[in-house]
């Protein structure tokens, strides 16, 4: 147990699984699997496991994503780290090959692979093509693939263990803006399930649902709302597909007020699904949705920071619902 950064926590899980399974491989492009943490040994998967198992490829995310599918079909657990710039390069092969493989073979093929897909949109000044926090929606519509997005180092590690041990293919979204988070993270291996939301705060007046990079702002807003006397329940989705309907519905049945918060574009943001599931199951719910507008993220910090939902926006929207 020690205070650990996100990336250190994740690589601890990967290192553990690679030690357990000598066939397991890791493919990266420009983010070497290296992390250090105060008081802990440096993790460097490349030097520890060698360049046959840990490969630095050219700029070809399509190959990276496809290669792990092939490795999985060959019986080798495999993971790859796709940088945010290439986040949708592998889209087709995940959508139309990987997600359908088990089903179309009548259960005879297994693809035990993990695509770590970076998302950004956290760095003002990196606009347009370099600021996409939208993959959550694209990837969560794909059946047969578990799409998850942790929001804390603890979950990041536990979900990485679960993802690497899962017989299902997993799109593991990594909101790169969370790389600065640190918290107490156990040294040993543990799993955080790939299909359960987390209730981060309990309350009875209002349910706020978010995920990934949206969570820090939601938690800050919830603190402020609590300070104002509101009883807020905060749900961190974690699993986008399959989404944990039960946790959402239980909460909304109690609060009858639902606010969703996304950094993804408004149209078909994960919150749309949350709202639809909530109101399909609970009558008389009042809802609001906070999201990035349906516009590409501009580079100018003035424009970008105004458009990206932050704690102020969340507090205001919550007040309007309460």
């Amino acid at each position, binding site marked *: 147990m020690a205070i650990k950064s996100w990336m250190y926590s994740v690589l601890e899980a990967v290192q553990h699984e690679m030690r357990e399974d000598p066939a397991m491989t890791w493919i990266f492009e420009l983010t070497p699997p290296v992390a250090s943490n105060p008081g802990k040994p440096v993790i460097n998967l490349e030097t520890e496991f060698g360049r046959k198992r840990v490969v630095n490829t050219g700029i070809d995310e399509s190959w990276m994503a496809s290669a792990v599918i092939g490795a999985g*079909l060959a019986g080798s657990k495999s993971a790859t780290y796709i940088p945010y710039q290439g986040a949708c390069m592998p889209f*087709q092969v995940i959508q139309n090959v990987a997600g359908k493989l088990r089903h179309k073979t009548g259960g005879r093929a297994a693809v035990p692979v993990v695509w770590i897909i970076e998302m950004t949109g956290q760095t003002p000044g990196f606009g347009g093509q370099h600021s996409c926090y939208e993959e959550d929606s694209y990837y969560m519509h794909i059946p047969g693939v578990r799409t998850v997005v942790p929001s804390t180092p603890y979950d990041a590690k536990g979900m990485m263990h679960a993802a690497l041990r899962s*017989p299902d293919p997993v799109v593991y979204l990594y909101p790169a803006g969370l790389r600065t988070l640190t918290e107490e993270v156990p040294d040993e291996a543990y799993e955080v399930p790939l299909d359960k939301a987390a209730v981060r705060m309990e309350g009875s007046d209002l349910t706020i649902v978010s995920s990934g990079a949206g969570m820090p702002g939601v938690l800050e807003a919830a603190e402020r709302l609590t300070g104002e006397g509101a009883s807020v329940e905060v749900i961190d989705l974690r699993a986008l597909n399959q989404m944990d309907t039960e946790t959402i519905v239980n909460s909304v049945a109690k609060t009858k007020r639902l606010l969703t918060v996304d950094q993804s574009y408004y149209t078909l943001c994960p919150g749309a699904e949350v709202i639809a599931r909530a109101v399909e199951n609970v009558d008389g719910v009042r809802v609001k949705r906070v999201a990035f507008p349906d516009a590409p993220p501009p580079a100018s910090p003035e424009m970008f920071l105004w458009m990206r939902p932050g704690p102020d926006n969340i507090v205001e929207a919550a007040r309007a619902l309460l």
Partner: protein
Amino acid sequence: MARDTTHPPQQTEDRPASTSRRGFLQLAAATGAAISVGRSAKALTDLPYPAGDLTDEKLVDMYRTILRIRWHERTQADEMLSNPDYRGYNHFYAGQEAVATGVCANLRNSGPRNQLDLVYSSHRPSGHAIAKGVDIPKMVAEMDFRATGMNGGYGAEMHIADPDVGFAGADGMIGPAPVIASGSAFAFRARGSDQVAVVFAGDGNYAAPHFHSTLNNAKILDLPLIYVCENNLYHQYAHYSLSCPHEDIATAAAAYGIPAVTVDGQNVVEVYNVAKEAVDRARAGGGPTFIEAKTYRYYNHWGAPGATAGELGAFGYDPLAITHFRPEKEVRAWMQRDPVDIARRILVEWGIVDAARAAEIEEEVKAEIAAAFEWGLSQPFCTPEDGLKHVFAEGTVPARQFG
């Protein structure tokens, strides 16, 4: 059946007969012209080296495999053309049988999963599947969407797979399969296995961007990948020259520094030989090989338009092709160099079986295939609710069509 090594095939040149296996085959190879059909049988004369490890049994097996593919197709075509209850379809492989057969005869097709060589196929998979050793009755059932089919009726033609024999499966999309196959090769290399990955891809695959990814990474990482390009001249209705600047697609692969060969895809021994060299090299850590097999399909791109029940091949213009089509005389010309005929003649001319036995084998195969269809088409249909299974390894997903 025992081969009479004292009875060499007819010779066109004056060479001494040899009783050594190797010598005999060299000889046999040299005599190919005598048994050629219509055009000079480069196939039988230009063997790069004698198929020295080919036992009689293996040669007969390959003949049988070719026949299985052929009769599976002919039977299926007849079903499509004359049985209104038959629901299956196919992208027929007839004409190309020697390619899958010659390649897969070099592979590990049974045994423990982590020893099997893997074959990746395309949207035209049944020939590759049979050559890799799948259970034909189950495949027949699968293609007609039966619950007990090879893939439970979930996949059908373009999506069949049988991991038990290392048939990684069909991939209906043009592009991804070779890249994915290279990933299997990557895994083999990473875990120090001597397994190899083979991908069959058409000439159409050349233009896909994945072509570059596949070859570049295979070369850079020295992967045990064998890329078998089945150049049957057309992708759908377009001649490959419309989308490829090379006469030989192998030229494109050679540019990466990958050993690349072209081979007569109608001659199973020639295919066997080049594939053997490739497989041996890959197993030994020597990296990838690209094999371009020049071949041809007797049917149109998809289904049986232009075909007649009981007859081999489809003639006349493909009614599905609107602005491009292949000339009928081209089909007929290629049928003169039929892979079944060539395989049969090799057996007979090399004295491995006589003509009567060769015909008998064909009858055996026909019966086997007929039984496969009988079994396959008597299997139960699927249960609707099962569509919700196998999305993930465990459980079912909820029905959502009811609101």
